[in-house]
């Protein structure tokens, strides 16, 4: 025993470190692998497009992070995203026909989508928090309700948004650089044409900027505020949280409302990027977004998880999807790969709880 002790301690610490940071290591390995095998994977353009492509999924996953840490689950995020997208597209289309100034049309259109997606989240929260119905059931019900309403608004066909500026907001960049013109904001330099355009470097696509802002705000909320602390407490031991005087009902409502809000923002980002609103814009992202949270180290039993973890989780999924396309693997293998990573994540989590118990 006395001999074993000094050896056991560093080994335990190493194991703990590996289990805590395995997702970073895994991401690093993926990046190394794809940089060696996929031409152009590590290019500036590709890295930024990974960021743009994962924006909606990550924003949705961030809401799910709060929900899962509070020992809940939100199955309605996908169709809430779709609902927000179609409402936003519809309002944009209707308002564009009016005499309102263009910036106001865009602001109102996006706001309508965000409000339209936050309300179902609020309803989820009230039913779960106040009426104590299990979140799985409530959000499954809301999944159907949001799906139905989204398709009704859409009318069976994605709503194409023909409003100037919307596409630019979703696909434009904040900064452009060209050797002769230097840096320009918002628009590419006006001079170069044709072949010269190839020399323009575009920096910071808007969806990436929105994603980073949401990411930072969520990180701050979860790790630095009373709200974040209470989210962990509710997930860790709801009974203890209640006895300690934490307003559990109010916090629960806020958590599901936040999830709805973030899903709605994801839907609005979708409208900006694809200039249309589709009812099923978000549902394919539901499982991947939950996967991102789990890969990021959150426990489905609640109480564990971080925003940075979810970010890494979403990045792993995005890198796998992007990388497999670049190296020319059939796209269906993406599902297999992401599925395998989810199971791996849970295995690591179990090993971790054995080590730290």
């Amino acid at each position, binding site marked *: 025993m006395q001999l074993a002790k000094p050896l056991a301690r560093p080994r335990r610490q190493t194991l703990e470190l590996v289990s805590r940071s395995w997702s970073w290591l895994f991401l690093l390995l993926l990046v190394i692998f794809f940089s060696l095998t996929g031409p152009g994977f590590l290019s500036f353009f590709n890295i930024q497009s990974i960021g743009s492509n994962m924006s909606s999924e990550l924003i949705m996953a961030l809401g799910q992070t709060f929900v899962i840490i509070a020992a809940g689950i939100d199955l309605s995020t996908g169709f809430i995203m779709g609902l927000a997208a179609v409402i936003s597209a519809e309002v944009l289309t209707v308002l564009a026909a009016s005499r309102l100034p263009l910036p106001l049309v865009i602001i109102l259109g996006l706001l309508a989508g965000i409000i339209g997606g936050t309300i179902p989240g609020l309803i989820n929260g009230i039913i779960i928090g106040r009426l104590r119905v299990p979140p799985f059931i409530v959000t499954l019900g809301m999944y159907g309700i949001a799906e139905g309403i989204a398709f009704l608004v859409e009318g069976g066909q994605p709503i194409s948004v023909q409003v100037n500026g919307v596409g630019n907001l979703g696909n434009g960049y904040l900064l452009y650089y060209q050797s002769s013109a230097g840096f320009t904001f918002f628009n590419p330099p006006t001079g170069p044409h044709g072949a010269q355009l190839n020399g323009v470097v575009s920096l910071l696509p808007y969806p990436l900027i929105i994603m980073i802002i949401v990411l930072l705000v969520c990180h*701050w909320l979860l790790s*630095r*505020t*009373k709200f*974040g*602390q209470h989210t*962990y*407490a509710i*997930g*860790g*031991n709801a*009974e*203890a*949280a209640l*006895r*300690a*005087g*934490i307003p559990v009902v109010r916090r629960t409502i806020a958590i599901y409302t936040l999830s709805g809000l973030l899903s709605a923002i994801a839907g609005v980002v979708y409208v900006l990027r694809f200039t249309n609103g589709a009812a099923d814009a978000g549902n394919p992202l539901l499982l991947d977004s939950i996967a991102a949270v789990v890969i990021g180290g959150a426990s489905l039993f609640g*109480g*564990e998880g971080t925003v940075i973890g979810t970010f890494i989780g979403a990045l792993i999924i995005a890198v796998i999807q992007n990388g497999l396309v670049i190296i020319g693997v059939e796209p269906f293998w993406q599902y297999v790969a992401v599925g395998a990573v989810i199971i791996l994540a849970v295995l690591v989590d179990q090993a971790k709880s054995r080590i*730290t*118990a």
Partner: protein
Amino acid sequence: MATRQPVLQVKDLFKHFGGLVAVDHVSLEVYPGEVVGLLGDNGAGKSTLIKLVSGVYRPDGGRIIYNGQEAAFSSPMDARQQGIETIYQDLALCENLDAPANIFLGREPIRHRLGIFRELNRAYMEREARQVLDQLDIHIPDLRRPIRQLSGGQRQAVAIARAVYWNARLMIMDEPTAALSIPEQRKVLQLVRTLRERGVPVLIISHNLRDAFEVADRIIVMRRGRKAGERITSATNDNEVVGLIVGAEQEAAEQEA
């Protein structure tokens, strides 16, 4: 002792659940700076009695006088706010959070960043937690570890530290040594003595005689909802108390009659 005012005075307390009388006209007092052991077999009414005192249940009859005033607690939170801290067997801690977070659970201090951002004041929480743990002579090397990784005794100590930090004026402990190893039991009992030295009265529930004899100044025995007897610890012995718990004397008396 008669000249001092009791912190807690229970008079003729009565509680029934349907036809089952759980607490049958029980009276007791707890004075400042004393440890009272509440003993009894399973189902003797100990837990119901303390739930009446800590605001979980409402009494069906009798009075609870706390700090000289008639008390009617509407909830455990209400009782806590008035200084009655109860430490349950399940501790009511969030095991995924660290010790400072648990000590400040539900009462987190806030600081303002740049005027508008309301943030948790982690530094203050850690400083205060360290201080109260030191005062109670509780050693937790790494305060940032989730308390899941602490021993059962350390967790018990965190629960006690929380009560002390928030100025408990009466501490109720429900089986504080259950499920602890022997050295940890000793540590917890030591904490009870520390509380007494600090003038915090403790009502400790146990069905472990050794615990009671080790820390209690007075022992109150309950049996079938009634107070079976009350003894000064130094003036009684195991046999007498066991007799009260199982009702031997009473039965003997009944047989004689």
